[in-house]
C-alpha cells in the first residue's frame, strides 16, 4: 500500500505541531521518521491513525484520499500501529489479545478462540516470531509482547505498519531481533514507517529517511549518511557525538564495594556478591542488559533497597544501613534511571524540583521555612547554566521535554558538593543535543576529582564515558575491563560469557 501525506498541518492552539508535512511511503519500503522528542513525529502519526484531525492537508492511500474519524477507520483502511507502550491486556492470552476488538464469534456469540489461535500461529510461523498463542501476555518478555502487537496489526491485514519508538523499551538483542522482523515485513511487501531518534537504528534498516525538526520536514537523508550528518539535521546545528575527554587523573580509592548482596521484595537475589572499587576522578561504567541487577545496585548505593548485605564505603565511611537522606547528605549525587518516577515531581515547578533533596537545611531552608528568594535566585542561575529550555523557573517539570527534564535533575545533583556521582541511564529518552551536554557534565565531574558510576544499557554511551567497564550478568560481575575493550567482547560478556584470555583491570 502506498501512503502519501500532503501538507499535513496540525495546530494545538497557537502551537503548530505539524507544519505542512508531506511524505510518501512505498510498499516494501522502510521509511524512517527521524526527529528529536517533541519534533512532532508522534503527532503526525496520530493524525495518520485518525486520533487527531489535521487542520490542513490530506492523507492518501493507494491514490484515494482518506477521511479518518478514528483509529477504527485507519485500521479498516489497512494501517497498523505498534505503540511504544503496548496496548495489550496483561491477564489475557496472546490469542485473546489478538482478537480483542475484532472478535470472531460462533454460535450465540461465543468467542471463536480457535480461529484466533490459528491466526496467531500462522502469522507467527510465517515471520518466525515464536509466539505461543496461549501464553499470558504478562508472562512474556517485553520484546515478545511487542511481537504480539505486530501480530495484532498483521491479523487485521495491515499493509502499512507504523512503529512508534519501538526500541525504547527493548534490550540491544531484542532491538536486533526487531530490526530483522522489520526487514522480513518489508520483504513481504508491507510499507513501514519507523519513528525513532536513535541514529544507529535508522542507518541499520531505513530505505529512506525523513528528518523532522520543530514540526517541519527539514529534509530527506540517505541511509548512507553519517551519524554526524543525521544528528546535525535533527538538532539544526553541528553536534559532537563523541565525548572528548583526557586521560583520568586518578586519586585514592573512593568508593569501595565489597561482597554486596541485594534481595528484592519477592525474595530474589538481584545483586549477588558484587565487589568493585572506583577511584577519585574515575568513571566506572556498568554495562549489561537491562534487568541484570543494575537498578538494585544503584538503589542499594542510595539506601533505597531494604535487604542489603556486604559493605559500601565512601572515603572510608560505611553507607550500608544509612538512610537515603544521610547518604545524600554525605555527598552522593544520584541521577535515577527513570526521571519521571524517581527524579522529578512533575507537578512541581522547576525551582521546586531543584531543591527536592535539600528540603532539610540550608541553603533553601531556614528555621523550618522555605527561603523562596534564595531558591529563585539559584533556579534562575541553574536554568541558564544548564541551558534548560523553559519559559521560566515557574514552569512545571511535566511540561518540559525529556532532555530538559533530565537537565533539571543533573543541575540539582551537580550543584551540591559531591563526593560520588551515581548516574543511571543518564541520557535515556533524551534528545541528541542534551545527551552531548549531559555527557560533558559527567566528564567535567570526573575531571574535578569525583568518582562517577554510570549505569547504561547503551553500549555507545558506556564506551564513550568509561575509564573502566564493569559488565554485569544476573547480579554478578562478569569482568571489569578497560574502556577500549572491543564491542564484540563486551557484547559477549553481556550474555554472561567470560572470554578465556580476559584480564580484569584494577584501575
Amino acid at each position, binding site marked *: 500500500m502506498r501512503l502519501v501525506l500532503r501538507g499535513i498541518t496540525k495546530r*494545538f*492552539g497557537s*502551537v503548530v505541531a505539524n507544519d505542512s508535512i508531506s511524505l510518501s511511503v512505498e510498499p516494501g519500503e522502510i521509511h524512517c521518521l527521524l526527529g528529536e*522528542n*517533541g*519534533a512532532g513525529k*508522534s*503527532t503526525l502519526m496520530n493524525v495518520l491513525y485518525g486520533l*487527531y484531525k489535521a487542520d490542513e492537508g490530506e492523507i492518501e492511500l493507494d491514490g484515494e484520499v482518506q477521511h479518518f474519524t478514528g483509529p477504527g477507520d485507519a485500521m479498516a483502511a489497512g494501517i497498523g500501529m505498534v*505503540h*511504544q*507502550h503496548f496496548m495489550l491486556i496483561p491477564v489475557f492470552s496472546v490469542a485473546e489479545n489478538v482478537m480483542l476488538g475484532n472478535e470472531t464469534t460462533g454460535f450465540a456469540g461465543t468467542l471463536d478462540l480457535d480461529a484466533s489461535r490459528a491466526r496467531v500461529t500462522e502469522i507467527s510461523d510465517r515471520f518466525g516470531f515464536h509466539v505461543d498463542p496461549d501464553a499470558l501476555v504478562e508472562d512474556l518478555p517485553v520484546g515478545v509482547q511487542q511481537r504480539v502487537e505486530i501480530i495484532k496489526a498483521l491479523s487485521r491485514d495491515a499493509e502499512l505498519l507504523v512503529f*512508534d*519508538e519501538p526500541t*525504547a523499551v527493548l534490550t540491544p538483542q531484542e532491538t536486533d531481533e526487531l530490526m530483522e522482523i522489520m526487514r522480513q515485513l518489508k520483504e513481504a511487501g508491507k510499507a513501514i514507517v519507523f519513528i525513532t531518534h536513535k541514529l544507529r537504528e535508522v542507518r541499520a534498516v531505513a530505505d529512506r529517511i525523513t528528518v523532522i525538526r520543530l514540526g517541519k520536514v527539514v529534509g530527506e537523508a540517505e541511509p548512507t549518511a553519517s551519524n554526524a550528518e543525521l544528528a546535525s539535521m535533527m538538532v*539544526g*546545528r553541528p553536534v559532537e557525538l563523541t565525548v572528548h575527554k583526557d586521560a583520568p587523573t586518578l586519586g585514592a580509592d573512593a568508593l569501595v564495594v565489597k561482597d554486596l548482596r541485594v534481595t528484592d521484595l519477592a525474595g530474589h537475589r538481584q545483586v549477588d556478591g558484587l565487589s568493585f572499587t572506583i577511584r577519585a576522578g574515575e568513571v566506572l561504567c556498568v554495562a549489561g542488559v537491562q534487568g541484570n541487577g543494575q537498578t538494585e545496585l544503584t538503589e542499594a548505593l*542510595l539506601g*533505597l533497597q531494604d535487604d542489603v548485605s556486604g559493605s559500601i564505603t565512601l572515603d572510608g565511611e560505611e553507607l550500608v544501613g544509612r*538512610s*537515603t*537522606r*544521610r*547518604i*545524600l*547528605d554525605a555527598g552522593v549525587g544520584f541521577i*535515577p534511571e*527513570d526521571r*519521571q*518516577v*524517581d*527524579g*522529578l*515531581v*512533575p*507537578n*512541581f515547578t522547576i525551582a521546586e524540583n531543584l*531543591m*527536592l*533533596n535539600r*528540603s532539610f537545611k540550608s541553603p533553601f531552608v531556614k528555621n*523550618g*521555612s*522555605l527561603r*523562596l528568594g534564595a531558591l529563585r535566585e539559584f533556579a534562575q542561575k541553574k536554568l541558564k547554566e544548564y*541551558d534548560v*529550555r*523553559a*519559559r521560566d523557573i515557574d514552569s*512545571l517539570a*511535566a*511540561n*518540559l*521535554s*525529556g532532555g*530538559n527534564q533530565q537537565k533539571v535533575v543533573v543541575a540539582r545533583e551537580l550543584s551540591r558538593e559531591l563526593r560520588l556521582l551515581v548516574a543511571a541511564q543518564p541520557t535515556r*529518552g533524551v534528545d541528541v*543535543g542534551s545527551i552531548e*551536554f549531559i555527557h*560533558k557534565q559527567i566528564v567535567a565531574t570526573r575531571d574535578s576529582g569525583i568518582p562517577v558510576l554510570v549505569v547504561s544499557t547503551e553500549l555507545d554511551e558506556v564506551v564513550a564515558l568509561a575509564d573502566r567497564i564493569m559488565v554485569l550478568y544476573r547480579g554478578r560481575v562478569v569482568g571489569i575491563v578497560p574502556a577500549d575493550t572491543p564491542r564484540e567482547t563486551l557484547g559477549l560478556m553481556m550474555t554472561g560469557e567470560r572470554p578465556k584470555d580476559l584480564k580484569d583491570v584494577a584501575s
Partner: protein
Amino acid sequence: MNDTDKPQPDPQPDRPEDSAGQTLTEPATEDRQQEERSRSVLREIVSGDAMAGVLAVFLAVFVGSVMIAATDEGVRETASYITARPSDFFTALWDAISGAYSAMFRGSVFNYLLTEPAQQWRPLTETLKFAGPLILGGLGVGLAFRASLFNIGGRGQMLVAGGAAGYVGFQFDLPTVVHLPLALIVAMVAGALWGGIAGLLKARTGAHEVIVTIMLNYVAYYLLFYALTKEWLLKTPGSVNPKSPPMKETAILPKVLGDQFNLHLGFIIALVAVGVAWWLLNRSTLGYRIRAVGENPHAARASGINVGMTYTIVMMIAGSLLGLAGANQVLGTVTSGVSLDLDASIGFDAITVALLGRSKPLGILAAGILFGALKAGGFTMQASENISVDLVLVVQSLIVLFLAAPPLVRAIFRLPAQEAK
C-alpha cells in the same frame, strides 16, 4: 555549550488537553501520563480551578431550585392547569423558588424582615458559627489530600477529641486561662493520636488509609459510647442518658460578639488555623515535603524524604485539626455535655468542604463559610417555607457531584478544555 544562532521557541510549549485530562505530548512522557490517568480523578477534584467550583455551586443551586419547585404544593397545583392559565404556574414557580432562597438568605446572612440592626445581622454570625468547625475539619481533610491521603476518619477523630476535651471540660476546676487552652490542647493531641494511627499503619504496613480511617470511625464511636456509659469516664452520675455533665464555665469558648450572638472563639481559632495551614503548605519545609510526597512519593523517597514519616505526620496534623473541630462543638456550640452525636456529621461534611475548597486553605475558608451558610439558612428555610432541611444536603451532595465531573460542567457551560498547567 549550546550555541544556537537564533533564539529557539519554547521546546515544549503548553499543549491543550483533551477532555480526559490527558496531555497531548510525545511518547516520552506517556509513561507518566498513564500513572497520571489513574490518579487524575482525585487530582482534578483537588487541583481544579476556582471557576469550576463556583460553577458547580451554581449548578447545584439550580438543580436544587428544580427540586424545590417540583415538591412545592402550589407549583404542582398550578401545573395541572398550566395550559389554561400559565401565569399562575409561573407565579407559583417564582414564589416557591424565590421564597426558598430568600428564606435561606434571611437565615444565613441578613434578615431584612427585622428592624434592629443587631438582630438583622445575627444570621451572619450563625453562619460563621457553623463555618468554624467545617473550616477546621476541611483543613484536616484537605491537608491529607495534599499528601494524597484520603482522610475519611474525620468523624472518629472528632469523637475521640470531643470526648477528651469534654472530660477535661467538666472534670477539672481550673482558671479559664489554663482550663480552656488545656481542653483545646488535649483535643488536638487526642485527634492527632487517632489520625496518627491511620498514618502509622499506612507507613509501616501499607494499610490503605481509607479503610483504616473508616474502621477507626466505628472504633471511636463505640469507645465514646462505652465511655458515656461509665461514670468514672464521661457519664453524668445518676443520669440514664449516655451524656456527660455540662462543661464548666472556665472551659467554654467565650462569645466574641457579646452574649446576644452565639458566635464563639471557635471561628477565630478556625481563621488562625487557615493562616497556619497556608504557611505550612506554601512556606514551610514540612509542607514542601508533604506536597512532594503527595505528588510523587517515588521521587520524594529517592530524594531522602521519609515518606512513611511524612504520612504519619500529615495524618497527625489532620487529626489535630479535626480534634479542634470536635472541641469546637463540645466547648462552644453544644456545651451541655458530650454526646454521641457531637460530630454533627461535620467529619463528613469536611470532605465536601475540602473538595470544594480544592484543598487550599483559602479555598477551604470560602467553602466552609458557604456550607455554614447553607446550614444556618436551611433551618430558616424549613421553618418559614416548609422546605425540608434535607434539601441543603442534596445541594451539598450535588456540589461534590459536579466537582467530580469537571468535563460535564465544562460541557454545560461550553468552557474550553482545561489548559495544561
